[in-house]
C-alpha cells in the first residue's frame, strides 16, 4: 500500500534522478538527536543506508544511541537534525509499514493468543473471519498453533514474545524493527527464538533492523553489524559479515563452526572492551 503511494509520488517527478531512493528501505543523513534542548546528545551526526532484505544489527554499549536510532526509524521519536527516510518517505510518525518488537512484553493481557495476533489486522480493517484465519497462520509460524486460547498470564516469556512477533508479522510490514527482542528471556529460550527468527526471515524475505548488546546474537542474526560508540552516539564501525558468504544458518552451531566466526567474535569483543575501558595504551 505504502509502496504504491511512493510510486505515484515519484511518478510526478518523472525523471529518474533518485531511482535508488525508491528502494532504499532506510536512509539516514546526518541524524542528530538531542534531549533537553541541546543539553544531551544521544545520537551525533550519523548517516547510514540500509539495504533491502538485509538483517542489520545495531550493536554497542549501553547508552550509545542504538535504541534511539531504532525508535527514530519507527517514528516513535523524531530527529533534532538531519533527514530520515523510509522507502523514500520522510518518517513522520509510527505506522504499520514498520513493525516493531519491544524488549518488554507487549501482548495484551486481556486477549488470548489468537485475538492478540489478530489485533493488528483488526486495526487495518481486515474482516473478522479473514483476520482469524491469518492469525492462525502466523501462530503456526511461531509454533504456537496449539495455544491460540491461552492468555498471556498463562504463557512463558518466550511464548509472549512469540505472540508479539506473530502479531507484528501478520501485518506484513516492509521493515521489521526489533529492540533487544530477546533481552528478557533466559539463555536457552533466547537461542530457540534466534533460530526461529532466522527461519521466519528466510521464509518472508524481510528487511530487518535489530538492536542488541549480545555479540553472539548479533553475529548469528546479522548480515551486517553497525557498531555504535557512546558519548556521543556515533557509528564506530560498519561491518558486512562477509565470512558468512551470504548464507543464513538455521542451526546456531553450524555458524559457530564456520570459518571466520571466531575472528569476528574476537573482533567485536575487543571493540566492546575498548568502549567500556577505553583504548589500551
Amino acid at each position: 500500500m505504502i509502496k504504491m503511494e511512493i510510486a505515484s509520488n515519484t511518478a510526478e517527478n518523472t525523471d529518474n534522478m533518485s531511482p535508488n531512493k525508491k528502494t532504499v528501505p532506510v536512509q539516514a543523513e546526518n541524524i542528530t538527536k538531542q534531549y533537553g534542548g541541546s543539553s544531551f546528545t544521544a545520537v551525533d551526526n550519523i548517516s547510514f543506508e540500509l539495504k533491502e532484505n538485509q538483517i542489520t544489527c545495531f550493536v554497542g554499549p549501553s547508552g550509545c544511541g542504538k535504541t534511539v536510532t531504532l525508535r527514530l526509524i519507527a517514528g516513535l521519536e523524531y530527529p533534532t537534525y538531519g533527514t530520515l527516510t523510509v522507502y523514500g518517505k520522510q518518517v513522520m510518525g509510527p505506522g504499520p509499514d514498520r513493525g516493531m518488537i519491544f524488549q518488554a512484553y507487549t501482548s495484551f493481557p486481556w486477549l488470548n493468543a489468537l485475538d492478540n495476533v489478530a489485533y493488528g489486522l483488526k486495526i487495518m480493517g481486515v474482516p473478522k473471519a479473514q483476520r482469524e484465519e491469518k492469525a492462525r497462520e502466523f501462530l503456526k509460524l511461531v509454533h504456537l498453533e496449539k495455544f491460540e486460547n491461552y492468555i498471556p498470564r498463562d504463557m512463558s516469556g518466550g511464548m509472549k514474545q512469540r505472540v508479539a512477533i506473530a502479531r507484528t508479522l501478520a501485518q506484513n510490514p516492509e521493515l521489521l524493527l526489533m529492540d533487544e527482542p530477546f533481552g528478557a528471556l533466559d539463555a536457552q529460550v533466547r537461542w530457540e527464538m534466534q533460530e526461529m527468527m532466522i527461519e521466519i526471515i528466510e521464509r518472508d524475505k524481510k528487511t530487518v533492523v535489530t538492536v542488541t548488546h549480545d555479540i553472539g546474537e548479533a553475529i548469528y542474526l546479522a548480515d551486517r553489524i553497525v557498531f555504535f560508540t557512546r558519548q556521543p552516539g556515533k557509528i564506530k564501525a560498519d561491518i558486512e559479515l562477509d565470512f558468512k558468504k551470504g548464507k543464513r544458518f538455521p542451526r546456531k552451531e553450524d555458524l559457530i563452526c564456520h570459518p571466520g566466526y571466531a575472528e569476528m567474535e574476537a573482533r567485536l569483543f575487543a571493540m566492546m572492551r575498548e568502549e567500556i575501558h577505553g583504548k589500551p595504551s
Partner: protein
Amino acid sequence: MQVDKGPQPIGPKFTPPKDKFFGLRVRVHRKKSIALGILGGFIFFAIWEIAHYMMPEAKQRFLPSVEHVIATVYYLLAEKGFIYDIAKSCYRIFVSFFSASAIAIPLGIGMGCFANLRATINPSVSGFRYLPAASFIPLLLVWFGPTDMAKMGLLFIGVIFFLISLILDSTDAVPIELTEASLTMGASPRQVVLGVIAPAAAPAILDSMRNMIAVGWTYLVIAEIVGANDGIGAVMMRAGRFLHVDIIMAGIFTIGILGVLTDSLFRLVSRLAFGWNIPQRG
C-alpha cells in the same frame, strides 16, 4: 496386575519445620484464611461483650451487648421500617457514587492519556482533594435546601476528586510499551485510548472505585445529619437525641455489614470481568 506407580521415592520422609503463626510471608490456605478471619471477628466481639459486662450496671446502656445490638437491628427492621431507611441510604450512595464515577472515569483516563489535558485540570483537582467535604454542607444547604440533592451532592464531592486522582494514577501505570506497540501497528489515538489503555487500566480503576465507595459510606452519616428524616444516618441522629445508644450502634453495625457487602460485590465483579488479571495459583 502390575500397576505403574510412576517414580518411587526411596529417600526417608522429610519432615520440614513446623508451621509457625508468625511464618514470614508464608502462603495461607483459603480454608485457614477464612477460619482466621472468623476468629478475628470473634475476638473483636468477645472484647466488646466483656467490656459490656465489666461496666457497672447503671452504665451498661451506654455500651449495649452484642446480642442487644443485633436484636435492635432486628427490632428496627421488623417494627420501624428500617429496611426503607437502608434502601434510601443505599440509593443515595450508589446514585452519587456512580455519577461521580461517570465523570471521574473518562476524565481520569483522559488525563492519563493526554498530557495537556492533565496539565490543565490536575492542579485544580489536587487542590480540591484538600478541602474537607463537610465544609460544603452550608453551601449545599443554601443551594439545594434539605433535599436529597444536598445529601448526594456531599457524597459526590467527598469521592470525586480522589477518584479522579486514583484513576489518573491507574492510567499512568499502564506500561508505555503497550501504547507504543499499538501505535507502531497503526492504531489511531482513539483506538489506543479505548482499545488498549482503558482495558489495561480497568482492573486498577475498579479497585480504586472499591476503595472510594468505602469512603462514600463513611460520609453517609454526615450527609444524612442535615435535615434528613430518612436514611440510616437520620435514624442514628434521631436516636442520639434520646440517648438511644443501642439504636446508634445498630446503625453503625448495619453500615459495617453493608460496607462488607459492597466490597464483596466489587471483588466479585472484578473477578468475573478481569479474570485475566488474577495471577494463577499453583
